């Protein structure tokens, strides 16, 4: 009587299909999606649909709990592959660079502008403080960051720091440390936005103060122009990345505070989508800044060349993000 169980026959008839799907998924999930043949790729959605329908039938007619569990797990795995499958990586990257990234940056232009204003204001404040009273320098710039560049240093030392040869190596350890530190600041500025924007303001202002203090120190020795070159070769890219990251953080913090007609959860998600694309772009900018700082700054030691590169990069970024373009 038992060989006749309908649920058993049901299973026996379809088991081979399920196993095939399992095998194809294992292949695809193992990162070998390219190794799937066209026929196999076509087969997955069909098999997926048959598993989903089998799951519905099994739930209604089979009391074999392990079978239902198995089908649930298999259907879920297949669902994520079928509906989660990304477009070809190249296509996605092309779309990101051609559309998503500049669109996201454009969308947060107001927040970026505010972050820029905070940065500029804090830089001016830092400059004014140290210019009028050099004692401020020590409390603004921690020793680890200053690396001996403080008011007691000789002018020659300060100048050397700008044209430091680093023994012919393109990338110095300290430059790398600065890069990872500043990249970390950008990411943190973004993340802190969630906490109702305020900590991001503090972080950006703190960076502006440091910048202003350093400028005041060099200006007091008549070295402002060379310092500008030293900073701008990578700084235009890096600081731009920082204000975009802060702007993306503001966007999220603002959405959480004032969700408007949406629920708070939904508003955060919508803001997160825009901010996410902008942040992915920030990572690209930070890498570009790192290359400029590590390689460019150590090998190019002419002020005008440094300014030219910094200015060109800034112009390129601005044009890339904000020039009106035809929507495709």
């Amino acid at each position, binding site marked *: 009587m*038992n*060989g006749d*169980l309908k649920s*058993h026959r049901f299973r026996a008839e379809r088991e081979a299909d399920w196993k095939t799907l399992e095998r194809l998924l294992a292949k695809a999930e193992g990162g070998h999606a390219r190794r799937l043949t066209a026929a196999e790729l076509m087969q997955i959605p069909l098999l997926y649909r048959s598993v989903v329908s089998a799951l519905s039938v099994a739930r209604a007619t089979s009391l074999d709990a392990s079978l239902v569990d198995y089908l649930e797990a298999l259907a879920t795995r297949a669902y994520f592959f079928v509906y989660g499958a990304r477009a070809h990586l190249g296509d996605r990257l092309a779309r990101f660079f051609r559309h998503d990234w500049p669109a996201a940056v454009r969308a947060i232009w107001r927040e970026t502008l505010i972050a820029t204003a905070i940065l500029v204001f804090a830089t001016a404040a830092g400059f004014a403080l140290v210019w009028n009273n050099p004692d401020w320098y020590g409390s603004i710039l921690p020793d680890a960051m200053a690396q001996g560049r403080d008011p007691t240093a000789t002018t020659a030392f300060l100048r050397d720091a700008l044209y430091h040869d680093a023994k012919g190596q393109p990338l110095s350890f300290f430059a790398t440390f600065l890069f990872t530190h500043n990249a970390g600041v950008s990411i943190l500025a973004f993340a802190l936005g*969630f906490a109702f924007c305020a900590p991001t303001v503090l972080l950006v202002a703190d960076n502006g103060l440091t910048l202003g203090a350093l400028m005041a120190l060099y200006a007091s020795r008549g070295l402002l122009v060379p310092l500008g070159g030293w900073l701008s070769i990578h700084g235009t890219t890096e600081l731009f990345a920082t204000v975009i990251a802060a702007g993306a953080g503001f966007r999220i913090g603002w959405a959480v505070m004032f969700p408007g007609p949406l629920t708070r959860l939904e508003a955060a*998600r919508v803001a*997160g989508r825009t901010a996410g694309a902008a942040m992915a772009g920030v990572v690209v900018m930070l890498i570009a800044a790192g290359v400029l700082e590590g390689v460019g700054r150590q090998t190019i030691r002419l002020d005008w060349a440094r300014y030219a590169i910094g200015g060109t990069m800034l112009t390129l970024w601005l044009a890339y993000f904000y020039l009106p373009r035809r929507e495709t």
Partner: protein
Amino acid sequence: MTAVSATRPPVEPEARFARRFITPEGADLRLVLGSGGDRAAAFLLDILFMVVGLIAFTLLIAWIASSVGLKNAEPWGIAWLLGFFVLRNGYFIAFEAGPRAATPGKRVLGLRVAARDGGRLTAEAVFVRNFLREIEVFLPVVFLAAANAAGDPVQGWVVLMGLVWTGGFLLFPMFNRDRLRLGDIVAGTWVVKAPRRSLAADLAASHDGGGFAFTREQVSAYGVKELQVLETVLRARDKRTMTAVAERIRGKIGWYKAPDERDDAFLTAYYAALRGRLEHRLLFGHRRRDKFDKA
């Protein structure tokens, strides 16, 4: 049945994390969310993997640096710093953006990241959910480290406030139904169970009746719940449990044990018979939940 379902007993812990998830085909996949414990365990595992990876990487760099001589060690210091940076910021992102949408720690626990709206998980969402770890995890750690270093009382209070504040972010998932952390909220994601199950043998298949014949009354003694408990017992194949269960069932249905009758054979036969009966009734629209159900 609807009248009965209103007075259903409280849901089991497993069901607390089950969510309706309708595919475009109209089927409900009934996703189960990762519990707080699973999530924490996965995260700790990932941290462990990262630390182990970092130690291995450091040793490798140290070995190379020492073999080329300390004079030219700076490039290796730089390589280490960059490697550390990439590992710290890239580990979660790289794995979650991959085809399995899960870090090694999550894979061990059978979890994966998914978009809450059922759409595809975008790279942007992965970036966002992991960048927010900065304030959820790394910032509390920084405050903890600062708590050790803080000398004067004012500094101490500042650190304490910071710790309380960021601790709120860290514990956020404990205070919402879907166990969302900040990153999940902003990225529109959640973490679901996606275990890999293999298809176990059908217990009703390997059996041809084996000389057992049950009457209708005997196969009407139990409902679906008992059937599935029996299934678990049969799959576990623990001898003492099987004997105990077989005794209970024989007593309940009034079955006289033949001298050469084996418990597992009896249980398998009864399982097949009971399932046949219940599935037959199911086709006619009667789902007998358990032995107390008079349907």
